[in-house]
């Protein structure tokens, strides 16, 4: 009996141990997770300790001064030590995030979260994310200086991981019950690919091909013109290109492949975009150039940006870094400042591949058969057998779509051709910009940057302002890459690239300012083919009009423009809507909403009801108008907002206005009324539930944790105005992810803020302490310390040194 009892108790204890040490579904291993000595209670920390830490590989001690915002100011003797320390310090605060993002890039999330991520992981593999990272590594391996710094950064991250006790693991590791693996140079390359995909991983080739077949070319061109009727391009229209000897290839006679897909993979969010602008000496209140930037990205915690000062005796740079990449990405030093917006060019095209047979070993090309390369992608899945995905590579690129992945049955596939696979040395561009002293350094630095193409804005102490649209751009024949192409025809391939010196750029333009907001890069006089691929048409005009509106600009003007909530689309569309709608048929409640929107001043401010009505109304109108695009059997993109406004304004009787599901033939006026009633009903319900419907509450901006917006680690209902298409481009979950203003001069004066905090630890008060300031339009004064400065006692200093 007593032995039986002993065995029973042993079994119970084994059960208790196993039960509390194991993750079940979403529930973390409770014993481990809640233990005060090992679990989350150990993550209740906000401060860094004043101490000396050991970091092998340093040639001299490195000082890390943390200011009150937990911004590290790193002083190192040389660049190798600097990047070693950058890796170490970044890992100290952002380890989980930097690893998670690279796992996401590489299509390895199933290892962490299980089968739920399998489709996501397959997509990443089939896009050739790892392939692209390997290409970039290849290019960088030929650059011994960059190699040395990548090594140093890697060693810094790994030194931190090596000395990390299980109790000190970031809370997300504890929650998901896994451990960090060593950092590698490839992970840095994967992080850069993650950004490339986010910013240059969007195209509509299948959707456009489908629409072309469905509606015919005349109708298609009406809805999706290469250029809109109004543009205010990045490079001013005055720019004269006539001195260039430029030519574009001849378009082949048979350029269309009308193959159709019912579904395409999820693409990056269309709200990924940005603003930047700079005024030259003559337009600046002080005579010093002033530069500003605000990249619009998904609003996440931990934030995508981590702010640092990185200094050696030779260079002293401050700004926003991407955890996982070396150097400052958007920032300034004593001589120059720079920023980026997405160039939004079409650099990803698709080729139809005809395989010889179902083995996919050969495909048709130029009258014969060419061999494919098979890449077996092993996707490890937590608590399951691995999934092996066969991805066939052609000379164009990976066959993303075939019958195993969203493709059609049969011997056809679709291969991707993408500048993201060309293998750039973006890291060199960033590090050279960190050290740049003048326009020539900036110009030279850009040459290594292939993708994602960016509008690099620049201002210098010497008084230059400039903007280069930098990336590697295929020199396309007119219309090339707007639609699907035939992978068996050599004449359908990219025939070459635009020479780097012919990338559109402008230095010290007559008008005294440079700017970009993801709009059209150039007007039609540019000698190479460019078509609208989702360019902005509103923010850019508001920004440029602002800088044309007066003579001189100061920092306060820059701040005001960052926070500018003027809704130009509403200003152009709303009068058309209110004027052409029958108000006689409106109920009392509907009339009250109508009153709110028709007296509105077109500013998407948080305390106004007008924007809520307008945005709800427009959403309904947009869906009603483009009901022709709601097809389950065809992947289609609805027209852009600008062309939507254009159509209802100029073609109110167009057949597209008709609602297919009704007997009647609707006109734009009918659509306005029907959509208004729908919107009013929606708003009425919303008001019943929430009491009010002011824009701030109605939009309900949130900053979501990287793990699918896990509510406990996210921030909701943030009071900030704006919307996508507005200079303050804060929509529900996208917006200005880093606002920076720098005035050059003897000593640069800089402001910056982002919707997050320096710590990646949800238990730190620095996890989200910038969010309220950001929402209120406030900035941190960036304390740009001279190299070697011993700052005051508001700083906490850590010394890193080799043993």
């Amino acid at each position: 009996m007593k032995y039986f009892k002993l065995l029973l108790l042993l079994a119970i204890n084994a059960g208790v141990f196993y039960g509390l040490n194991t993750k079940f579904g979403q529930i973390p291993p409770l014993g481990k997770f809640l233990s005060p000595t090992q679990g989350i209670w150990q993550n209740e920390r906000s401060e860094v300790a004043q101490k000396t830490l050991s970091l092998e590989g340093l040639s001299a001690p490195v000082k890390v001064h943390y200011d009150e915002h937990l911004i590290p100011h790193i002083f190192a003797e040389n660049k190798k030590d600097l990047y070693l320390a950058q890796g170490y310090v970044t890992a100290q605060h952002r380890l989980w995030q930097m690893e998670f993002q690279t796992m996401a890039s590489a299509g390895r999330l199933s290892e962490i979260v299980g089968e739920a991520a399998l489709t996501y992981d397959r997509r990443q593999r089939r896009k050739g994310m790892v392939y692209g990272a390997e290409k970039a590594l290849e290019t960088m391996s030929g650059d011994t200086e960059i190699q040395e710094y990548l090594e140093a950064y890697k060693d810094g991250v790994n030194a931190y991981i090596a000395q990390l006790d299980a109790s000190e693991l970031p809370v997300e590791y504890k929650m998901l019950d896994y451990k960090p693996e060593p950092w590698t140079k490839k992970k840095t390359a994967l992080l850069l690919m993650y950004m490339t995909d986010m910013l240059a991983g969007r195209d509509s080739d299948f959707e456009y091909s489908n629409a072309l077949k469905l509606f015919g070319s005349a109708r298609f061109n009406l809805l999706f013109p290469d250029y809109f009727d109004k543009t205010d391009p990045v490079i001013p229209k005055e720019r004269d290109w006539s001195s260039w000897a430029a030519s574009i290839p001849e378009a082949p006679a048979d350029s269309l492949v009308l193959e159709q897909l019912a579904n395409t993979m999820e693409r990056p969010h269309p709200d990924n975009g940005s603003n930047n602008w700079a005024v030259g000496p003559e337009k600046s209140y002080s005579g010093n150039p002033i530069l500003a930037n605000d990249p619009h990205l998904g609003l996440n915690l931990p934030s995508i940006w981590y702010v640092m000062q990185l200094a050696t005796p030779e260079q002293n740079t401050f700004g926003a870094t991407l955890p996982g990449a070396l150097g400052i990405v958007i920032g300034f030093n004593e001589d120059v400042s720079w920023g980026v917006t997405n160039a939004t060019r079409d650099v990803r095209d698709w080729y139809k591949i005809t395989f010889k047979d179902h083995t996919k070993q050969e495909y048709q090309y130029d009258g014969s058969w060419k061999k494919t390369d098979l890449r077996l992608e092993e996707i490890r899945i937590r608590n399951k057998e691995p999934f092996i995905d066969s991805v066939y590579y052609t000379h164009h690129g990976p066959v993303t779509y075939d019958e195993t992945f969203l493709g059609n049955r049969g011997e056809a596939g679709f291969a991707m051709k993408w500048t993201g696979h060309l293998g750039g040395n973006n890291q060199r561009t960033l590090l050279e910009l960190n050290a740049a002293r003048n326009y020539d350094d900036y110009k030279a630095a850009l040459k290594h940057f292939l993708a994602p193409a960016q509008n690099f804005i620049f201002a210098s102490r010497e008084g230059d302002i400039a903007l280069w649209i930098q990336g590697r751009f295929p020199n396309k024949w007119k219309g090339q890459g707007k639609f699907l192409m035939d992978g068996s025809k050599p004449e359908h391939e990219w025939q070459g690239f635009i020479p780097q010196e012919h990338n559109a750029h402008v230095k010290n333009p007559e008008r005294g300012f440079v700017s970009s907001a993801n709009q059209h890069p150039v007007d039609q006089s540019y000698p190479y083919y460019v078509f609208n691929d989702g360019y902005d048409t509103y923010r850019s005009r508001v920004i440029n009009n602002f800088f044309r509106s007066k003579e001189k600009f100061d920092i306060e003007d820059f701040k005001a423009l960052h926070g500018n909530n003027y809704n130009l689309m509403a200003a152009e569309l709303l009068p058309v809507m209110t004027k052409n709608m029958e108000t006689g048929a409106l109920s009392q409640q509907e009339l009250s909403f109508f009153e709110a929107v028709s007296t509105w001043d077109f500013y998407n401010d948080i305390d106004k009801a007008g924007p809520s009505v307008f945005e709800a109304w427009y959403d309904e109108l947009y869906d009603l108008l483009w009901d022709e695009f709601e097809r389950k059997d065809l992947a289609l993109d609805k027209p852009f907002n600008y062309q939507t406004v254009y159509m209802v304004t100029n073609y109110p009787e167009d057949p597209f206005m008709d609602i297919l599901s009704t007997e009647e033939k609707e006109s734009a006026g009918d659509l306005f009324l029907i959509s208004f009633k729908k919107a009013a009903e929606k708003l009425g319900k919303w008001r019943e539930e929430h009491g009010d419907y002011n824009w701030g509450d109605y939009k309900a901006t949130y900053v979501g944790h990287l793990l699918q917006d896990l509510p406990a680690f996210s921030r909701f209902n943030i009071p900030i105005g704006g919307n996508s298409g507005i200079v303050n481009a804060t929509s529900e979950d996208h917006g200005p992810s880093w606002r920076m203003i720098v005035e050059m001069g003897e000593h640069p004066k800089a402001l910056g803020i982002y919707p997050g905090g320096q710590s990646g630890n949800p238990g730190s008060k620095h996890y989200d302490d910038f969010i309220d300031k950001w929402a209120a339009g406030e900035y941190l004064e960036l304390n740009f310390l001279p190299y070697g400065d011993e700052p005051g006692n508001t700083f906490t200093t850590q010394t890193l040194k080799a043993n």
Partner: protein
Amino acid sequence: MKNIFNLILTIVLAWVITLFTPWWGVMLAALIVSFLVPLKGGSTFFVPYLAIFSLWGIQAYMAGSANDFILAGKIADLFSLDGNTTLLILVTATIGGLAAAFAGLLGKQLKTVVTS
């Protein structure tokens, strides 16, 4: 008296052991103490329970209070405790207590088997 001795010894030993081991050190401590200082009846279960309940409760409170319970509040949200950090401390303490209580029963039984 023996109960109090066992209680204090379990707390102290668990505290020391978990300086070096993961969380299950509290199970080990309860097991060892109830082997060395066997108790009778319900005390075999409740004394180690109370010991680790107190230890984890106090340790969790101290860790949290040093940082305004910022993380505890979020974890309490995660566990649908409505952000209530006191409840999270109670849950923490109870889990530790239960693990130790079962280990205590096992320690006592081992003693019974060995000495008979």
